[in-house]
């Protein structure tokens, strides 16, 4: 009986196995996919929440692609005047561009259209925000060091592309809000001496706003920029695989290994699931919270400007920089107006961005460190870098807050001028304060780490010795814990040495100065001998 039932099952499963085997062989012979799977599937991915931020960005981008494709089916990138006749009553019969009218149709007359618009826009905001947070993580843990400097640059390019994607998309509906944004861009371009006006005419196809700009932005928004983003994401990921992932310091983790889970099956399953988690969060937000209600703003018309006109958050820092310029920065030379009120903030922003993208190279040069680094720094163990980062964040935040100065003023019942002046102060002095504070905090934390490594931590238990003396019992940390506390790179300021010809060049001297600035204040990790002598008593 049992035999009789067992036999057919065996043959059946053998049959199945034979089929899958054949299919697998067929595929493998033709694609060599098993090599890729074996290679990639065995990649190890360490586990830390902050390592998923890049993934959040990637997944939001996928959501953007999906929802964006839906929108392209209904959006008309044309500035032809039409009379709106859709179902939103307060705009019925109003003249507007076909772009605006089709955006309204998507919002009111196409099933699921509004949800898709909101998904698309929220995902875009999340996309740029997660890139920003991801970059901060990379920066503060020193993950940009050799061999990953180029990947930092690629990531930075992605950040800029994402902002460009966002801005072009924000401008497409041709509503009053985005039109004001374009007007500012037009003003900035016109502020470039001599050629500005020509460039503006070229861009807008004549006098602002013209009839072309929406179509042009649309080609950028749905073809050029996404293609570039995809290329750079691909490059970015290839480098991640080639370089392997970095990891936080810990016992058993070295520069030559990666401790974590293999991509297959654990990690891939998690990542796949996580995609749906991110997708779900975005859809949840989009279904509950309104975003960019263009029907409130109405069609673009160059005369009205609304109070509280702001760009999306990622362009805010640029808008804020313009707002923080004191009035009257303008001169007339050779019959041309030089609008310093535009040129200076734009210049400052460009310098800031260039510093960000070049930072890995600058730091590499200052430290003179040519080694590969796969172990991350705890931020406190690189006090100067962390302090520079904090200063940069403060600077950016001041510009960013500048963009919402009017809303801050009304909501906290302050005067506009008061808000602007405090932000100007924050912009210039804030970074220095942030730098000094952060550095002190880092050094303090390092000292604390060192004393814990050497003496253990205070257990809070007071003991009276037979002699009458009171001591607090210190609890020693475990070896695992101590490893984290004492294993970090210690740099010393570079010695300025003469070169082959016996000369000290200016560049070398400058480097020496920078290096001293970087490493003068430092707390060296507890050495083995210190640890040994400590453990004896």
């Amino acid at each position: 009986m049992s035999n009789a039932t067992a036999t057919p099952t065996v043959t059946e499963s053998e049959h199945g196995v034979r089929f899958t085997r054949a299919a697998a062989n067929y595929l493998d012979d033709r694609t060599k996919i098993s090599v890729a799977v074996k290679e990639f599937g065995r990649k190890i991915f360490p586990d830390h929440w902050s390592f998923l931020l890049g993934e959040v960005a990637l997944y939001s981008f996928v959501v953007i692609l999906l929802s964006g494709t839906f929108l392209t089916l209904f959006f008309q990138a044309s500035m032809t005047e039409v009379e709106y006749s859709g179902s939103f009553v307060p705009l019925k019969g109003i003249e507007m561009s076909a772009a605006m009218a089709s955006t309204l149709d998507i919002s009111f007359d196409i099933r699921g259209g509004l949800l898709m618009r909101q998904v698309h826009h929220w995902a875009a905001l999340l996309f740029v925000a997660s890139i920003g947070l991801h970059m901060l993580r990379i920066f503060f843990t020193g993950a940009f060091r050799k061999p990953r400097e180029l990947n930092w640059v690629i990531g930075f390019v992605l950040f800029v592309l994402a902002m460009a994607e966002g801005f072009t998309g924000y401008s497409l509906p041709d509503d009053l809000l985005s039109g004001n944004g374009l007007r500012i861009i037009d003003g900035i371009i016109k502020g470039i001496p001599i050629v500005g006006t020509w460039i503006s005419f070229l861009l807008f196809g004549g006098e602002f706003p013209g009839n072309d700009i929406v179509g042009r932005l649309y080609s950028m928004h749905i073809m050029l920029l996404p293609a570039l983003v995809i290329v750079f994401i691909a490059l970015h990921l290839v480098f991640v695989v080639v370089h392997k992932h970095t990891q936080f310091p810990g016992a058993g983790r070295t520069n030559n290994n990666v401790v974590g889970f293999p991509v297959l099956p654990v990690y891939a399953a998690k990542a796949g699931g996580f995609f749906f988690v991110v997708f779900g969060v975005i859809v949840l937000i989009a279904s509950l919270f309104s975003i960019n209600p263009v029907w409130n703003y109405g069609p673009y018309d160059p005369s009205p400007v609304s109070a509280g006109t702001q760009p999306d958050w990622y362009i805010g820092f640029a808008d804020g920089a313009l707002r923080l310029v004191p009035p009257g920065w303008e001169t007339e030379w050779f019959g041309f107006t030089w609008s310093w009120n535009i040129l200076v903030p734009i210049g400052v922003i460009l310098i800031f961005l260039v510093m960000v993208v070049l930072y890995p190279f600058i730091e590499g040069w200052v430290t003179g460190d040519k080694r590969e680094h796969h172990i991350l720094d705890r931020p406190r163990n690189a006090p100067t870098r962390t302090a520079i980062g904090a200063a940069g964040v403060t600077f950016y935040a001041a510009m960013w807050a500048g963009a919402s100065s009017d809303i801050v003023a009304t909501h906290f019942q302050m005067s506009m001028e008061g808000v602007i002046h405090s932000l100007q102060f924050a912009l210039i002095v804030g970074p220095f304060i942030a730098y000094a504070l952060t550095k002190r905090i880092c050094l303090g934390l390092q000292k604390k780490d060192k004393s814990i490594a050497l003496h253990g931590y205070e257990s809070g238990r007071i003991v009276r010795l037979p002699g009458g003396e009171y001591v607090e019992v210190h609890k020693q940390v475990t070896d695992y814990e101590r490893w984290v506390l004492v294993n970090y790179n210690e740099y010393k300021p570079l010695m300025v040495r003469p070169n082959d010809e016996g000369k000290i060049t200016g560049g070398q001297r400058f480097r020496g100065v920078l290096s001293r600035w970087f490493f003068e204040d430092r707390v060296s990790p507890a050495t083995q001998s210190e640890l040994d002598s400590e453990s004896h008593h």
Partner: protein
Amino acid sequence: MIRSTKKKTKKTGRRHPMATVALVAIGLIVTGAAYAGFSNSSAIAEVDLQAQSTIDEGQKLFASNCATCHGIQADGTDEGPSLIGVGAASTHFQVGTGRMPLAFQGPQGMVKPKQFTEEQTLQLAAYVASLAPGPGIPEAQYLDGDGDVANGGELFRVNCAMCHNVAGAGGALTEGKWAPKLSGVASVHIYEAMATGPQNMPVFNNANISSDEKRDIISYLKYLENSTSVGGFKLGSLGPVAEGLFIWIIGLGAVVALTVWVTAKSN
């Protein structure tokens, strides 16, 4: 059997001719009361603004509440401007929104709970109007909110949005002044604000914006106020700043919490 009788009684109960009558009556009473309340609060109650008794009452109220700042003749002091010629509309707006009597000197008079009944407010208005002609209290036909909403929206964007924001969410002006948000403001006060231009707001007289156009604007603002937001919660109608804050704090916050959760599960 029992079930069917029950059904029957129910049915007859509902079909009872008096039920319909009663329903209609209730409906009429409710709408009538609501209408009366509405028109009472938004337009002229049964106060005769021309009557000498009204003006006298107003003068009394004025002398005891307003004269310290505006002068006993309402011709102004260092504390407050002359009210001669500002008209009933201005007084009705200032007192009706609770701005007057002014609580303290600041960049701008604050809206606060109003201190006078509608009747007293009208008496004050009658008194101020008796001093010299000025913009009067608008007629109810402009306040019904049944104007052309699309035209009102267009006019609002062109004339008002630069200070009050396209969605009427308010905005900042210089020197600590601001244009308030417009939701929850009574139709009559919207009209009067346009007609009299309180403080930093320009006057929109009938040559700029005709009475019918004012009606359209009011209709638009009432439409904004009463329509539900199709996209979900409005985040204060503050536009990209609110959206940006939201995505950083709630959106990214939630996602980061989830990354922590996803990675914590493995250990």
